[in-house]
């Protein structure tokens, strides 16, 4: 399925053009934040690490477009497509990245993002990679026990598929048919190590067979294809048929972190790059697409200015939220 391309209409429920526009709008917001952050990190002292997600926007946006507002999302920390896709505004995201009180975490978050919005199912991140598999299963179990038809989605990278928690959680989720989606963004790198050096399988989706669950490979540059695959998996999960392992083949356009010299990568690696925004824009009215892009850029620019104008969080922030009350 890795050979899907814009012309080829993927199966499953056909996305209507409103959906395409919404996805494009959110990809544009995500991209605008990417560009904003690239510049910010270059020009400012930045705490933590910013892990650029440029080039991978289609995966998070396409998949989260198939999620309901009350579905639970656990994302991994590259870029911000998932949070935007799930409905967060640029303001609280940039607020966290810049360490300002307007951030969704009140400025405690940062480069390795811990942004959050329980009201729309953005449940947060575990920066020890792979730690959220069981958390997502816990949220899925909660949904199952309450008898709602919510699902939980755990997003992770190809390297993170090697964590033991990947297996422990799938064993149970599959045995108990939990409404859990495993969504891998396979960009074929873990920092500077090529996946193929440390993995017995090129396709992370191959692991699905052992658990007797569907494993799906999808073109991660194509938001529409990602949407369709995820919508199917979510349907299965809501129907009580258990987890699906989706693998989106994506492309890491930049270094692992902003500033990474990438000595380990061939100089021509960008030749294989396909821009997910261009890919989706080709399916939209050209003017409409440019209007959405201009709007996104403006929205991000003003959110950035607002955040930069804020003071740092109050020093006593460090003692807050440790215990409830």
């Amino acid at each position, binding site marked *: 399925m890795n050979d899907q391309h814009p012309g080829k209409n993927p199966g499953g429920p056909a996305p209507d053009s409103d959906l395409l526009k919404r996805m494009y709008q959110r990809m544009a917001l995500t991209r605008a934040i990417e560009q904003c952050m690239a510049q910010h990190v270059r020009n400012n002292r930045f705490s933590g690490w910013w892990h650029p997600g440029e080039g991978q926007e289609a995966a998070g946006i396409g998949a989260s477009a198939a999620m309901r507002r009350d579905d639970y999302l656990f994302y991994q920390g590259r870029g911000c497509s998932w949070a935007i896709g799930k409905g967060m505004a640029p303001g609280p995201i940039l607020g966290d990245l810049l360490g300002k009180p307007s951030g969704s975490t009140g400025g405690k978050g940062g480069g390795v993002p811990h942004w959050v919005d329980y009201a729309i199912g953005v449940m947060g991140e575990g920066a020890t990679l792979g730690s959220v598999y069981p958390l997502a299963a816990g949220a899925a179990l909660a949904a199952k026990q309450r008898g709602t038809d919510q699902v939980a989605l755990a997003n992770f990278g190809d390297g993170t598929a090697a964590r033991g928690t990947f297996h422990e*959680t799938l064993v149970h989720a599959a045995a108990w048919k939990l409404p859990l989606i495993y969504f891998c963004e396979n960009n074929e790198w873990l920092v500077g190590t090529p996946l193929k050096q440390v993995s017995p399988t090129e396709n992370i989706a191959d692991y699905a067979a052992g658990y007797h669950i569907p494993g799906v490979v999808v073109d991660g540059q194509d938001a529409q294809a990602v949407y369709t695959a995820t919508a199917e998996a979510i349907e299965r999960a809501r129907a009580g048929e258990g987890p699906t392992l989706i693998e989106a083949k994506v492309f890491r356009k930049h270094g692992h972190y902003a500033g990474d010299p990438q000595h380990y990568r061939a100089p021509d690696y960008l030749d294989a790059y396909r821009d997910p925004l261009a890919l989706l824009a080709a399916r939209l009215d050209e003017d409409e697409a440019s209007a959405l892009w201009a709007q996104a850029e403006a929205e991000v620019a003003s959110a950035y200015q607002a955040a930069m104008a804020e003071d740092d969080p109050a020093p006593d922030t460090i003692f807050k939220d440790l215990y*409830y009350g």
Partner: protein
Amino acid sequence: MADTQTMADTQSITYNAAMGQALVEAMREDDSIFVLGQGVATGGWFGAEKGLADEFGTDRVIDSNISEAFEAGLAAGAAIAGMKPVINMGFGDFALIAGDEIFHKLAKWRYMHGLNVPMTAVIIFPIGTMNGAGPEHSSCTEVLGMHFPGLKVVVPSTAADAKGLMCAALREPNPVLFHSVNTLSFQRGDVPTGSDHFVPIGKACVRRPGSSATLLTYGSMVEPSLQAAGQLAGEGIDLEVIDLRSLVPIDWPLILDSVRRTNRAMVVHEAMKTAGPGAEIAAHIQEQAFFDLESPVLRVAGKDVPLPQHGALEALCIPSVAEIVAAGRQLCLG
């Protein structure tokens, strides 16, 4: 060893049954509580959950596979999704298998996301020796919960407290590491009936008032400490024995009041000595009450070795009544 409150209606049951009773009563009142762990539906390794699955079904009393990291991580996820998970981790030693999930996730999730929301989760860690369970199944790991912030930490020493602290933990809006003591599992005690028997988390209790010195202990060492105090009484040494019950938060006011009165203190626990709970307690007491002390704060604790599986060797590794008595003498006379 009478509890401070009046016990109108009590029942003599075991420590583990008391924990189980608290669970049953709370589960009847609150649909969002569920229990999960290895063997919890098939009776529970230590009997604490006996009968739970019969009453509540295997949707709420759930056997898991052998996956401690999963179990603890699931608790965190279920709790932030509004459920109240109770996880039996099997052994305190397994805190080291699920360390990331417990000390980075359960403990820090709200903090690192800047959230001031309630989050109830009870993680049961049966701790301590039990005649040869060996070096990987006998550890007292409660000090981990003291060092890594974000969790509450309790260790009941009586059946009544096992119930009362469990009742409190199930209503606590913060994750609780609930350490049950293996050697006490089948010890009976008078336990108040009803689901409102709360032993507040963070409150210590004076098990034996005294004036010569303050002995701070908890869990498996409360009983031997009381025995040692009994022996020392015959020698004119009148120990005040305090059962800490909670290690986070720890009841510093009660502790320091006592030490300022007796001017001497010792800590007794089964956990290994070096960098164990007693290290913090001794360090804090001397920091806060140095000029009230007439002698150093002593520690009687587990030897700094893994626990051998051999029952007789194991016994040599944990404090005996004789060692506590000797330390009491040294504290007051030496």
